[in-house]
């Protein structure tokens, strides 16, 4: 088993438009999906959400406001799952609720540091 980082990208404007009640409705599929991963003992870290605002630091002490290239591709959060291969990790990401709202999941294997 290896650990894989799942990076959730979506349109940053989407969350901002939600009412608290809609937010509640959005949360439930996430709990179901993560609960399902956890029931398979494949959730390694329940991760975090990220604030939409950010800054980008470039050489020469240049600091610009994020987000970056495309608001539509803003990173909304991440989790870490356990899988036997990159293919399995991608398969497990198919039910991720981010897909239902036009977002996507980037799947990357975590390579532990050699110390």
């Amino acid at each position, binding site marked *: 088993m290896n650990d894989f980082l799942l990076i959730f990208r979506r349109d940053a404007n989407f969350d901002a438009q939600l009412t608290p009640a809609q937010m509640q409705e959005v949360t*439930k599929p996430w*709990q*179901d999906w*993560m*609960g*399902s991963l*956890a*029931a*398979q*003992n494949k*959730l390694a870290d*329940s991760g975090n959400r990220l604030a939409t605002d950010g800054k980008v630091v470039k050489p020469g002490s240049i600091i610009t406001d994020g987000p970056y290239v495309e608001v539509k591709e803003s990173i909304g959060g991440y989790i870490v799952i356990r899988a036997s291969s990159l293919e399995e990790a991608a398969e497990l990401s198919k039910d991720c609720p981010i897909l239902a709202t036009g977002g996507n999941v980037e799947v990357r294997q975590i390579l532990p540091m050699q110390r």
Partner: protein
Amino acid sequence: MQQDQLIPHLYRTEYRKIIAVLARLFGFEHIQIAEDIASDTFLLASETWGKTRLPDNPAAWLYTVAKNKAKDYLKHNAIFNEKVATQIKNEIQQTEDVEIDLSEESINDSQLQMMFAICQPLIPAEAQIGLALRILCGFGIDEIADAFLSNKETINKRLFRAKEKLREQNVKIEFPDSKEINKRLDTVLLTLYLLFNEGYYSSSGNTNLRRELCLEAMRLNYLLIQNHATDLPIVNALFSLMCFHASRFDARMDKDGEIILYDDQDSSLWNDELISRGTYYLVRGAKGPQLTRYHIEATIAYWHTQKQDSPEKWDNVLQLYNKLLILEYSPMAALNRTYALAKARGKAEAIIEAEKLTQLADNHLYHSLLAHLYTGIDQQKALQHLQSALKLTKNQAEKNRIKKNIEELEN
């Protein structure tokens, strides 16, 4: 009370008090002395009470004898005096002045401090539970062996090694300071939780003993609630969980000690008093931002005290199992989540989720669950899973139940 019942009864209630107070006096490294004095005291009681008439206040008699034995020990044991008496609290100038305080307050303090001394991550959990049963609950070695489905020799060895380890690490019988208390409390609560579960879920056939394990876990938990510094939300949440579970004591076992499943329980046997206590402590536990597994499990247990089945109930239970699993995986939580999913959203959706739990393929409960889900949808598959469950279980009562299910399905 008959005299032949009196001494075992007093042993259960007073032995642990004498030990806790004496051990605090002598220090953990000399806990054996405290145990010997307590045992000698009961030996003397059983020898003399039979010959003469009973003392008017048997508990006070025991305390006096234990105190005198402790003072004698301090006075006469030269080695002990040299090595230890000087280390015992500085204020003790002469052994005659030693104050052995067996008041309720001193006993409770001693028991609390002893709880923190025993519940240390440096000894295995089952050794912590064993020591708690012996020292904090006054259980005999044979009873502990019975509870663990083990033998006296193994338990004696286990407890001896654990005490050695605690001695080597120079464990003190004292209350942790406020900075450390949360971390130390986690271990104490886990031990109480496991002690309760040992009673609630153990396969030991001795139902009285099992119930007593649960009640002891509740008594110790309640001591923590009564103490201001440890009366924290997490402590209340665990107590609430125990109350809800304990409310089903009378309903969950038949007269032969066999488990009656939740769906088949006579809910008029549920204890309303304990249910309302559980609710009271759940509310007390909800103060503050911390949401622990005890909070989640207590809330699930709360929903199970609601007799009426409703989609709302099961959707709540499902979401709670999701939270519990995200916090910490366990096979039981994975199975229960799937059961709740079937109740909330139907068997078809639950079957898809259940088939993903391949890590549980050698767990008989997993196959029992799949059989339950397939019943009425695919009888052939239901039967296959019951047969797998039958092969995997070792428990005879469980086998009988599965065989009954197979018969029902075949007819």
